[in-house]
C-alpha cells in the first residue's frame, strides 16, 4: 500500500531541523500501523509526507502503486480527495456545517450523487452511533463526538488509506479507547489501511504494528 524509500524532510531556519531523516517504511494493504515516539520524533511530519500534505526533500513515496513524490499541490489535493482520509488531533470539522454535512463534505467534492451520498452518510452515522447527532453543529458536540464525526468523514469517501494524527490526544481515556476500538473495527470490516500517530502506550498495545521513531528515524518495530 505505502512504500517510502529513504525519505527526508528538513525545515529551514536559523537551525535547520531534520524532522524526517533518510527513513524507509512499507505499510501493507489493510494494515493498522501505529507511529510511536516522543514529541519531536517526526511522527507528524512522517504522517504529512505519507498523506501527501507535504513533499519530501529527498527519497520517494508511492501510495497504492502511485508515485506521489513529485506531485504538485493540485495533484496532491486530488490524491487526498480520492484515496486518503484524515483525522487530526483537533479542529477537524467545519464549524458552519452540522455533523451530517461535515461527513458529506468529501462526497460532495467527489461529485457523488445526492441519493448515494445520503445512503452512505446515513450508514456510517448509524455505524458510529451518530444518527441522533446528525443535525448538530460541532460546537454542540463533545470532543469525543466530534472525533467520531471526523472518523465518519474520513471513512465515508471509501479511502484506501486513513491518516490519523494523535486523534485521541484531547480525549479522556474512556473516549480514547472507544475511538481506537472504532477505528480497529473499521480497519477490520472495511479493510482500510490506517496509519496513526500516538504517544499513548495503552493505545499502542491495542494496535497490530507499532513503529518507533526518534529524531526522524525508525528506532524499532513491534508487532
Amino acid at each position: 500500500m505505502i512504500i517510502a524509500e529513504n525519505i527526508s524532510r528538513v525545515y529551514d531556519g536559523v537551525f535547520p531541523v531534520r524532522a524526517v531523516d533518510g527513513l524507509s517504511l512499507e505499510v501493507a494493504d489493510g494494515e493498522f500501523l501505529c507511529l510511536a515516539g516522543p514529541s519531536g520524533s517526526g511522527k507528524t511530519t512522517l504522517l504529512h509526507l505519507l498523506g501527501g500534505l507535504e513533499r519530501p526533500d529527498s527519497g520517494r513515496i508511492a501510495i497504492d502503486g502511485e508515485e506521489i513524490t513529485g506531485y504538485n499541490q493540485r495533484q496532491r489535493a486530488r490524491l487526498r480527495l480520492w484515496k486518503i482520509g484524515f483525522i487530526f488531533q483537533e479542529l477537524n470539522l467545519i464549524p458552519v456545517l452540522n455533523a451530517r454535512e461535515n461527513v458529506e463534505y468529501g462526497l460532495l467534492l467527489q461529485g457523488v450523487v445526492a441519493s448515494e451520498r445520503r445512503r452512505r452518510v446515513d450508514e456510517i452515522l448509524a455505524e458510529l452511533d451518530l444518527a441522533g447527532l446528525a443535525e448538530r453543529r460541532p460546537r454542540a458536540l463533545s470532543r469525543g463526538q466530534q472525533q467520531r464525526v471526523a472518523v465518519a468523514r474520513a471513512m465515508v469517501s471509501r479511502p484506501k488509506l486513513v491518516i490519523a494524527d494523535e486523534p485521541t490526544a484531547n480525549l479522556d481515556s474512556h473516549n480514547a479507547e472507544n475511538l481506537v476500538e472504532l477505528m480497529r473495527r473499521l480497519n477490520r470490516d472495511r479493510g482500510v489501511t490506517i496509519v496513526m500517530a500516538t504517544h499513548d502506550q495503552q493505545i499502542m498495545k491495542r494496535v497490530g504494528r507499532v513503529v518507533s521513531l526518534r529524531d526522524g528515524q525508525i528506532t524499532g518495530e513491534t508487532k
Partner: protein
Amino acid sequence: MLLVLKLAWRNVHRNTRRSILTVLIFAVGLATLVISNALYDGFHEKMVINAVRIFIGHLQVHAEGFHANPTVDKCFVPPPEKNLDLPQVTALARRVRFQSLASTAATSQGVMVVGIEPEREAQVTNLKRSLVSGTYLGSGAEDLQSCLVGERLMESLRLEPGEKLVLFGQAYDGSIAAAACRVTGVCRTGNPEIDRSCVWMPIASAQEMLGYGERISELVFLTRRAGDVPAVQRELKHRLAGAGLEILSWKEVAPDIVQLVELDIAMQTVLMIIISIIVALAIMNTMLMAIQERFTEFGVMAAIGTRPGQIIAVLMTESFFLGLLGLAAGALVTMLGLIYLFWHGVNLSAFSAGVMKLIGMDTTVRPLVQLKQVVVSSLVVLLSGTLVSILPALRAAHLEPVEAIRHI
C-alpha cells in the same frame, strides 16, 4: 456550487458583529456615492434650467456671427413661422437685442436692451414671473413707451418705478438711435448680471429705435425636454440652410456652464474613486481578519481535498453576499437621506456667495436621482468590495495545508 453558496452564506452569519460592520461599510459607501452624485446632479440641473429659463432658452437663432460679436448690423428677417414649427418646440419668441447707454437724471450706464414679445417671452423664459414690482409689459400701443428694468440696475441708475429712462445706441443705418421709456416694472431674474444690466421693452419699440423694420436679432426656442435639443437643432439647420443664420444650442450659447458641469463630473468621478478605494480597503481589512482566524479550517478543508479554487470561491461568494446585504442596507440609508435632503434641500449660499450667479436666487439645491447613477454606484461599491477580497482569498487558498493547520 450549492456547497460554495451554503458555506459562504453560513460564514456570513458566523461572526455577526463583524458581518454587520462589513455590511455597514458597504452601506455607507453606497449612500455616500448615491447622495453626493444626486446632489451634484441636482446642482447641475438647477444651473442648466435657470440658465435656460432665465434668459438663453434651449436654442437661439441669429444672423451668422452675432453670438461672437453682437453688433446692430447682424440682424435678419425672421423666416415664416410654419418653417419653425416642430413638435418638440413648446414655445418660441423673437427678440431684438443690443447694447445701449441708459441715462437718467442722475447718472448713465451701459445696458443691454432686449426687445421682446411680452406674452411669448413669458412662455420661453421666467421673465414675467420674475417681476417683483410694477406691471409686466403688454402688447398694446399704450405699452410701446414702457420698459422693465433689472432690480440692481434700478439701484445703480437710482431710478424709481414710473420714472423715465433714455436709451442711446447705434441704429441699423449707423446713425444715432435714441428712445425714451417709462419704467413700469422691476424684475429680479435671479441672475445678478442680468439684473444688473438688462432693460426689456416691447420688440416694436426696439425695432423702431434701431430702424430695423421687420428685422430681429434672435429667435429663442424652448423645447419639451433638454434631450430634444440636438434633434431640433439638426432640423432647424436643415430647414434654414443657406439663410446666413447660426443655430446654437444652449451649450454653445453658454459654454461656461457646460465646462462647469464637466468639471463637476470630473470631480464626481474622482470622489467615486476615492470612496471606492476607502470601501475596498475597509472590506479587505475585515476579510483579512476573518480569514486569519480561519486558517486552520482552510488547512483542514485543503487536507480533505478541497481545491484552492473552491476555497477562493467560498471566500469571494461570502464577500459578495455581504456586499448584497450592504447594498440593501445602503438603499435604505440612501432613501432616508434623499428624503431628508429633498424635503429640506441644501442651501449653497452658506458656502459661497457667488453661487447665485450660477443657479439663480433660489440657492437651495435638491438631489436629482438618476437610475444610471444609482446602478453604477451600486456596482462600483459591490465590485470594489468583492474583488478586493481576492487578495486574502488567494493567500488562504494557496497556503500549504500543513502551514494552515499549524496556524493555531
